């Protein structure tokens, strides 16, 4: 970790610091929170301006905007991490299977994966979530988003596998009597880790974006405070018309900062890997 920090560029460092700051502060603050449920209406007076007690004021529904934002950020990150985990794990297993079994199985598996890559995800996500009428809880929502998160990593892992299979050190391992499973675990997985990490971060970003898009359509988890839902609730209560910029603006700014930081982290990390390999 120290080595990465030392050798990676400024882009990586800024990205890492901002992302870590947002993630850690939201997790720690939500753990430390002792007040009433932040979603409850009329917990405070409505439309208060920013003050020491309410750093971002209160909403037109009488909720504390700051704490709403903290919980929304944590929940959005949580959805992103769950979806990215599903996508990465399934994708790596799928890609490894296709790459090592080969032949007709590989071809069929790749046609399916390619279809999932090109199939337009948003319309299908709309269909699935619309059927549930926006009443999904976090786990099914993450599963539904996960349906479109595995195909890209699967394709990539398979490509890596195919090129690895012919490498000398894999052949050496095979001739020295190592089983296929052992080769995968000891030789290939470590090689995949750097790539999987970059893919994971990217999947977090994509999943948070998709969840917020669904939220704007009123199709995300209806009661879950997430960044997208927070924007949507503010829009539904005409916060833009009423110029309640703190309420509608704070989740917008948070999403922008989070996404730019994550993207800098990802591209900075990828540059670092490329440099390390001497590409």
């Amino acid at each position, binding site marked *: 970790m120290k080595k990465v920090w030392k050798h990676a560029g400024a882009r990586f460092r800024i990205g890492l610091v901002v992302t870590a700051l947002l993630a850690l502060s939201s997790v720690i603050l939500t753990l430390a929170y002792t007040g009433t449920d932040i979603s409850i209406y009329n917990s405070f007076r409505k439309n208060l301006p920013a003050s020491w007690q309410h750093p971002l004021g209160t909403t037109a529904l009488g909720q504390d905007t700051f704490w709403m934002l903290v919980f929304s950020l944590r929940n959005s990150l949580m959805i992103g991490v769950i979806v990215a985990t599903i996508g990465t794990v399934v994708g790596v297993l799928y890609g490894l299977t296709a790459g090592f079994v080969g032949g007709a199985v590989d071809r069929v598996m790749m046609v*399916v994966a390619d279809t999932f890559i*090109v*199939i337009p995800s*948003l319309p*299908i996500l*709309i*269909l699935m979530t619309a059927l549930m009428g926006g009443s999904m809880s976090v786990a099914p929502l993450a599963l539904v988003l996960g349906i479109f998160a595995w195909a890209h990593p699967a394709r990539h892992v398979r490509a890596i596998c195919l090129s690895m299979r012919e490498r000398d050190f894999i052949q050496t391992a095979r001739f020295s009597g190592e089983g296929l499973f052992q080769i995968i675990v000891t030789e290939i997985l470590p090689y995949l880790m750097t790539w999987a990490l970059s893919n994971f971060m990217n999947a977090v970003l994509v999943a948070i974006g998709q969840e917020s898009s669904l939220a704007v359509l*009123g199709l995300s988890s209806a009661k879950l405070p997430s960044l997208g839902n927070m924007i949507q609730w503010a829009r539904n209560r005409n916060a833009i018309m009423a110029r309640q910029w703190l309420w509608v*603006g704070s989740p917008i700014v948070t*999403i922008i900062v989070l996404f730019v930081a994550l993207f800098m982290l990802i591209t900075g990390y990828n540059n670092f890997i490329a440099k390390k390999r001497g590409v």
Partner: protein
Amino acid sequence: MRRVRFGKYLAGRLLSWFMVIFIGITFMFFIPRFFPADPVEGMIAKILSMTSLPEDQVVYIRESLRMQYGLQGTLWQQYLGFLKGAVRLDFGPSLMNFPTDASSIVMRYLPYTVGLSLVTTVVAWTLGNLIGMLAGFRKNKKSSVVLEYIAIFIYPIPYFILALVVQILFCFVWRIFPLTATIVLNQGAARFWETLLRSSILPACTMVVVGFGWWVISMKAMSENTAEEEYVRFARLRGIREGKIATSYVFRNSIIPQVSGLSISLGGVFGGALMTEIIFQYPGVGQLVQKAITQADYNMIMATVSISIVSISTATLAADLIYPLIDPRIRFQ
């Protein structure tokens, strides 16, 4: 030889076009049947919440809804019926505009979305690749570093977030544009085009700005790598002008993957168009699907989603057929 190669390419692309639509439609058939939510009972609950009906009428409504939703017979019969309907783009009547056919309503809205996506994609792709090419070719100039950073800052922002920011700035803070798009259909062609253009400016600008970042970033990386190839150095040693090296050597070679990237990006652009339309109240498929969701118009959602899948995969196929035109390795003959 070449003819065979292109034939193979075309066959592969046609197969994948067909597979995407087939798997997509199959998905759409099975998803509602495996989800715990029942659209028929949902509709009945909605009707009963508005008026009270005697039990025999509820039974009658349930039967007719099941028929309209294609829920009669065995699963296999339902599936065949659904596929047959999908081929004719028949998804039953829209419930919010009963008895108009759902897909004919989608077809009325579709040109706006397709037009918006198409124009903005072409503009974003051209602009992004030109900027990326310049930034990559003169990689150490200050301007190209600035350009790349602007692209990195804008690219990861989702469409609807940028749309919201643009809307807040231009419709509320500076009040340059009206809040909702109104397109006048019944006062002649000139008035139609004028209102169409005026309501398209903000959505189109948003989509171009979000869309072009990726092309800048990828084209910069691509042309940077190409500029270091041996044949570029050789061309330089032969005394070929820098301008010619930029266009015929670097650009020509680094644009190839950008064209295949174009076809991959179309699905995302369409999704982005839906979200942008919803924010700006632009009368496209996005607005239609939002209305259908709020009114629980199940047939309409099915029609919108299916027609979206068909149009995106067809557009992808079209973009893939440009590819052989510029890549000499898979050439038309």
